[in-house]
């Protein structure tokens, strides 16, 4: 299969002023799940679990898209905070999708039939979009000229309201600039505008693995020349832990008919390991908080095996980072993963459209 997304490993340090971890987290807008792997811990630290407490996200059922252009929403939410909004239950490769990025851009990811009836100009297609007959319309909600009475606004409104009446189920979460304002007000705003507003809860799972085989990781040697394991194998191991694949050392079962998967060598035995998983709609700000808490925790409790934080994005998000369109060919995988070492150093895996 030809087109797998590029896989990048960055080795850097949080204390480095050129470190890109902040940009990486903030630019990855739509996050579906977090996996924390904490070796030598029995539960996720309180400081980490607290991060998820006060952020609320909502599911809006059958919200017409033109509601997102209306002045109260734009002035009240888009300009006064970071709106993360994404259509859910829509498949990127076959359905229309929509999203509003924190930068205030409404992205409509349309199939050919919808585009030819809608009447809004699309941005130039990427090669993958051309092959799949997909058109992407970007509307900048924050632009100065985008307000009622202007031609562009009126046209967009007319197209979305009268012509097609596009409706989606949306997930929304809002991070206000002003910390005094509660993020729940966005849910209240939409109660009258769509069929149903319900709180979209996070599901948290925590499990403790005992006597788990861990690959030996050496921060300086990602290629695994002598001591450590190869970084690709480490990433696979992290995936196996996240998917709860049994990692019993293979000496006990020599029958590898079912699976030949095993923990990469050289390995260390970790007496216990906590895996903490959160699924839901998580804005980047929360992930930044988690990362901060985890760094603090890590420097307080150094261990031989580094901890890791993996963020999995929505496979059907029309944009992944900034305004880079998300090309769904084989899979919509967009994952990034931090491996944190006690001395502020980190590995950052990126597995998505660049």
């Amino acid at each position: 299969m030809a087109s797998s997304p590029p896989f990048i490993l960055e080795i850097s340090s949080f204390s480095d002023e050129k470190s890109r971890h902040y940009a990486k987290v903030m630019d990855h807008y739509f996050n579906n799940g977090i996996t924390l792997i904490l070796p030598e811990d029995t539960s996720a630290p309180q400081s980490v679990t607290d991060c998820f407490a006060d952020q609320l996200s909502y599911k809006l059922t059958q919200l017409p898209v033109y509601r997102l252009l209306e002045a109260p929403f734009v002035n009240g939410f888009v300009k006064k905070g970071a709106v993360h909004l994404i259509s859910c239950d829509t498949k990127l490769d076959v359905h229309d999708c929509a999203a509003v990025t924190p930068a205030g851009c409404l992205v409509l990811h349309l199939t050919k039939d919808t585009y030819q009836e809608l009447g809004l100009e699309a941005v130039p297609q990427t090669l993958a979009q051309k092959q799949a007959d997909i058109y992407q319309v970007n509307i900048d909600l924050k632009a100065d000229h985008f307000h009622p009475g202007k031609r562009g606004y009126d046209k967009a409104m007319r197209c979305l309201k009268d012509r097609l009446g596009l409706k989606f189920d949306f997930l929304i979460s809002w991070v206000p600039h002003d910390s005094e304002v509660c993020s729940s007000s966005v849910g209240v705003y939409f109660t009258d505008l769509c069929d149903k507003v319900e709180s979209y809860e996070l599901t948290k799972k925590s499990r403790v693995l005992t006597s788990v085989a861990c690959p030996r990781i050496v921060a300086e040697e990602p290629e695994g020349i002598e001591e450590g394991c190869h970084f690709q194998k480490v990433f696979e191991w992290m995936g196996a832990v996240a998917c709860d694949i049994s990692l019993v050392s293979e000496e006990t079962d020599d029958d590898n008919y079912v699976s030949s998967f095993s923990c990469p060598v050289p390995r260390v035995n970790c007496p216990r390991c906590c895996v903490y998983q959160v699924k839901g709609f998580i804005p980047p700000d929360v992930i930044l908080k988690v990362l901060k808490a985890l760094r603090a925790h890590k420097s307080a409790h150094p261990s031989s095996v580094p901890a890791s934080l993996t963020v999995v994005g929505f496979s059907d998000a029309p944009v992944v980072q900034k305004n880079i369109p998300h090309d769904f060919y084989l899979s919509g995988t967009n994952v990034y993963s931090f491996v944190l070492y006690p001395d502020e150093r980190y590995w950052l895996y990126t597995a998505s459209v660049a």
Partner: protein
Amino acid sequence: MDQEPSAKDLTVTNAEAYQELSQADLGGKANQMSSGARTTYVTSFLGKHLPTNRLKTDTDLSAKFESVDCSRRRKKKRGKSKAGVGARTKVKAKLDWKLECGKKTSYSTYLPLKEMWTKYIEELIQFSSSPNLNLPAAAQKMMKADLHGCPLSVRKSKCPSYIGVSGIVIQETRNMFVLVTPCNEIKSIPKANSIFTIVLHDYVFTIHGNQFIVKPGDRAAKKFKTKPSLDL
């Protein structure tokens, strides 16, 4: 001989006169002198300022050439000019027409045309005769009908800016519909890659532009085939 000297005199005077005449004819001695001075000035000027390889005397024929075989070029030119003239006159005629209608374009001017067309199509399709319209027959008649004056709107198009344009057809050509919109604008919309709709009372007629690319005059005689693919 009496006559001889006189004749001689005469010849002398003639010669003198001729000399004078020729001098006068040539524009006077002063003039001749000045022209000579001019040529020397020019040559000296050129000698000073031109590069040496450009300084060639008249006797040097190597600098003089003339194309003998220019038949191809001439042929091409002739062909081009012929076509050009034809197209230009055509364009000019069209432009004149456009300008003329551009001057006094207003939607209201064409409203009577629209009413006329509605009457015409009602007669043609026989709306009043039966409550249940025979749709295939009506569609057949619609295909052959004259569309000048019909209210038309673009429902789908490959080009997003055409979508939603509606107005009265004031001209139909092989490839275009020219509409006048309620905002008193003239819009030319290609038939290709668009789908048009006509709303008549309770019925909506859809025209697939790609299959409608026929001269309006020939359309009445044309046999339309049913085509399965309706993709733009």
